[in-house]
């Protein structure tokens, strides 16, 4: 127990220390050779069972550690712990590419398809055609209501009521909210899933994932050239980049049950398109910026809300004004591409955040497909799309044409009306209203025989199972604190300009004590979230050295991540891991003697 208490959760740091002492990393193999040998001896069998011979190369060892981490995330019983574990390795956040549905660049759709492993199809799923009878029943009533909404909003609302710079956005928002209100009140008596749904105005929709198969940049290749454990042929291997989507749809309709799958397993629409050329995959070549930010997967509400499945996602088109301004005469030709990119990215982010809300993660493969529907409109021009998220595992493997991927169905733009005057709406296109009714009337339901939350443990939820009030409160506060992405009260350590010149580039101060972080090889970007620097205890008060995290002068001295790990039976209490560490500790003690 003392040995286990002396062990930190940072197995990678321990391995680094042991590597320095010349310990072979094979000691951290998942199966221990000594155990199996003793098993054979006890059974007395003549045929020996040897453990698998593991590849001890750096790459293979890192892959095993990565798989172990993925399994750890899968095994955590609550959404909050899974989301915090995604961010555990980075105290100051991941250096992630920031994507937004409103920053649409030229020829952006092909990059978005690569980044989300999505096949975009310009068609409409057949499942919607089964709703034609119900659609025709509600169409006349909805048509009159929509006319009233547009007359009021576009003709009868006073012009002074608009701030000019935000006019289009406010008009679009008001029309979207009014049409959604009308649809929900019209259909709630007939459709149970609409009666039970909730509509969020401008919710927070964020999604975070790792995008593999991105070429290493020049700086990474340069650093790899100094790493002796990386063979020369692997120095140009592609890398995984964190990607963060931050969006705010105009409106989001959520329900308790998911939408049905729009395409079956094995359908050719669910195959990945041809991947991008290697040179075009780096997000920075697409004017996407990078930023240090915690990875967040938020479907508009916290996990305690029972309605985690998104039904309809409403977006506006004001970004096309910036797109037109930026790209001038080429913008018109690129507009369908821009809309495809927006629909694909928003649909993927909505589905991924829903998946995280029900216990999956960007590193956990889905057990059933998730679907969402998107409407992009400014009131006059409408674009409908549907997205089906089949797999998250494809994001972690190299892009391959024909491999399983996700699907996005996008329809061409449609005009709802030609003109709105005080006399009425001219040229109202009923086809648009039919598509809209189809989206709302598509019923949700359980997936037969499939558990919707297979990786969440209802008996060990954060709210119910954690009895310690301090731990439960503090963990939840920590979760909100990290997910809010607020700035830290203390700035990150930086190398001052004069230090860069006089200490790093030119060693002009050899007699000065090496106390700065870069002189001690402690880089802030590599600091973990559960790094705990306990308070200073004066020498006079120290008694029988025990790590500070277990010797709490007050409850504020406790570290929330260590306490939760102890409660959950974290990896530092894994028996095999502890046994291996015990062997290493004893080896170290002998060597020190």
């Amino acid at each position, binding site marked *: 127990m003392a040995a286990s208490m002396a062990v930190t959760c940072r197995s990678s740091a321990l391995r680094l220390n042991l590597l320095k002492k010349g310990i072979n990393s094979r000691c951290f193999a998942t199966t221990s050779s000594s155990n199996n040998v003793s098993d054979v001896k006890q059974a007395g069998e003549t045929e020996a069972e040897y453990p698998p011979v593991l590849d001890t190369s750096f790459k293979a060892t890192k892959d095993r550690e990565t798989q172990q981490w993925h399994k750890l995330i899968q095994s955590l019983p609550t959404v909050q712990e899974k989301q915090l574990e995604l961010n555990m390795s980075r105290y100051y956040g991941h250096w992630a590419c920031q994507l937004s549905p409103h920053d649409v660049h030229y020829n952006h759709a092909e990059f978005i398809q690569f980044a989300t492993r999505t096949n975009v199809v310009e068609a409409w799923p057949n499942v919607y055609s089964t709703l034609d009878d119900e659609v025709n029943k509600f169409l006349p*009533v909805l048509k009159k*209501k929509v006319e*009233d*909404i547009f*007359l*009021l909003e576009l*003709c*009868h*609302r*006073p012009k*002074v*009521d608009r701030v000019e710079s935000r006019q289009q956005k406010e008009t679009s*928002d*008001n029309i979207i*909210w*009014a049409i959604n*209100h*009308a649809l*929900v*009140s*019209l259909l*709630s*008596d007939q459709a149970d899933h609409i*009666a*039970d749904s*909730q*509509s*969020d*105005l*401008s*919710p*927070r929709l964020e999604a975070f994932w790792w995008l593999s198969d991105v070429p290493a940049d020049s700086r990474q290749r340069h650093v790899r050239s100094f790493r002796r454990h990386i063979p020369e042929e692997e120095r140009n291997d592609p890398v995984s980049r964190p990607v963060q989507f931050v969006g705010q749809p105009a409106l989001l309709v959520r329900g308790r049950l998911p939408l049905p799958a729009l395409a079956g397993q094995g359908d050719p629409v669910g195959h990945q398109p041809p991947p991008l050329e290697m040179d075009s995959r780096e997000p920075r070549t697409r004017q996407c910026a990078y930023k240090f930010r915690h990875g967040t997967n*938020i479907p*508009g*509400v*916290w996990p*305690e*809300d*029972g309605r985690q499945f998104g039904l309809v996602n409403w977006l506006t088109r004001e970004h096309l004004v910036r797109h037109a301004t930026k790209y001038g005469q080429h913008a018109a030709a690129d507009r369908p591409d821009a809309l495809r990119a927006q629909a694909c990215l928003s649909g993927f982010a909505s589905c991924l955040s829903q998946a995280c809300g029900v216990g999956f993660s960007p590193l956990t493969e889905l057990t059933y497909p998730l679907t969402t529907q998107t409407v992009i409109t400014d009131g006059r021009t409408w674009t409908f799309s549907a997205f089906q998220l089949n797999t998250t595992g494809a994001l972690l493997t190299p892009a391959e044409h024909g491999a399983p991927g996700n699907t996005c169905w996008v329809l061409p733009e449609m005009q709802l009306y030609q003109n709105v005057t*005080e006399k009425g709406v001219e040229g109202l296109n009923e086809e648009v209203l039919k598509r809209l009714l189809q989206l709302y009337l598509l019923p949700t339901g359980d997936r037969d025989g499939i558990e919707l939350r297979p990786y969440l443990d209802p008996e060990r939820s*954060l*709210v119910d199972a*954690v009895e310690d*009030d301090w731990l*439960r*409160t*503090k*963990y*939840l506060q920590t979760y*909100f*604190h990290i*997910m*809010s*992405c*607020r700035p830290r009260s203390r*700035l990150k350590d*930086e190398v*001052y*300009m*004069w230090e860069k010149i006089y200490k790093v580039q030119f060693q002009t101060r050899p007699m000065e004590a090496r106390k700065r972080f870069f002189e001690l090889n402690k880089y802030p970007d590599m600091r973990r979230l559960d790094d705990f620097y306990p308070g200073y205890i004066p020498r006079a008060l120290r008694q029988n050295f025990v790590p500070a995290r277990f010797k709490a002068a007050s409850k504020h001295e406790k570290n929330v991540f260590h306490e939760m790990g102890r409660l959950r039976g974290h990896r530092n209490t894994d028996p095999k891991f502890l046994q291996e560490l015990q062997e290493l500790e004893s080896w170290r003690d002998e060597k020190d003697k």
Partner: protein
Amino acid sequence: MRFTPVLHKHLLGRWYNDMWKQKKRVTVDNRKLKQALEANGKTVYDAAKLFGVQWEDREPRVMETAVGAEAALVEPARRPEHHQTAAFVYQGKNLLLGQRQAQALTNTIQVGEGLPEQVTALEGLERIRNQDELVTDVIKTSLMFDATQEKLSKVIDVTRLGLPQPVQYGVPELRSNRSLLSGLLSLCERLAVRLDGFQSRLTLYRPLLSATHVTSDGHRLLVSRRPELALMADRPLPAPAPAQAVEASRAAAAPQLEPVSPFVHLHSVHDYQWRDVAPVSAGCRHRYVHTLFLAWNGRIKKWVDDDQLGALSVMSMHAAAVNMARQQAGPGRPAVVQCVATDGRLFKRSVLQLNTQAVPDPTSGEVSTRHQLKNLLWTEPATPLYERCAYTDGRPLLAGYNAEVFNRLLALYMNGLLARTVPDLN
């Protein structure tokens, strides 16, 4: 980072030098000093001429002004919103004397306690399927489960004066109030189809409401406020008070605030937009304001109470009713408006029947409108929708949910939909 002498020498020394090189070009403008001295009878001599010195004026360096500062520097007479006549402006802030002052300003008297019978009779008449569960879900989502995390306005903790005040992140009150009201109204609208009122109601989000008044002695009053939501209808609400009761109001007196003017605490400004703005124009089919939903920041608890919610309701309802009355072609029936005011927890319902557009003078107060018709107000004390809705000890908690509040909101919504409450427009 720590500002050490070494850091200063390596980083800031050059910066200081550059700043001084720029600053030395700044000249002090002495025009106002010269004007002030000459106004006091002092003779000002030019120093260069007095001493016979050759002096070259440097070009004054133009300092960058903040955005909008240039507009403020424009002479008042040339600003588009400037008026010679000052006006008292109410924009939804606190009234010093609360609801009494609002009634005095709008020439309104309160009729008894509670809402009119035509509204109270509708309470409990209709129910939505799973009503309580849906309403509690709306409350929880708006106040607890909304994942928006923004820096909240500072609330000074007087027990920590002098110490750093804790920074709080959460759902802004503007957002949570809008989400709560929108969710509750959306639930109310589910009755519209059942009661054959689907085509007769429309909702507006944050419409501008502005009403102008000129008193008998020429003072101007401008009421301008944006409600969070406005429920518009295609027919007006029936007047709760019959004609005899309206005539009898001549004998009643609006609240008397003497010796205080009813316009106390209202800013008298010269820069304002003097205009009547109704939520929609007169040609719209849904031009009648049915119910206003007003939200107020409940975070600053000491400013928001039942009295102030009542004041806000009266002023906003009066502005909406005045606009409706002015949109009518000729003298028509009294304009009736309903209102729900909330701070996120307390809900206060009110009904106003506008019988006159006259407002009292700021100097003579109620005396100037004596023996005139009065506007009639029905209101009830603010009722909490819940006692507490927050994460407590790491668990989401909604305590003290009051189901009656939503039943009363439904009654307000149904007013004008059911056959017996539909007014005879002929």
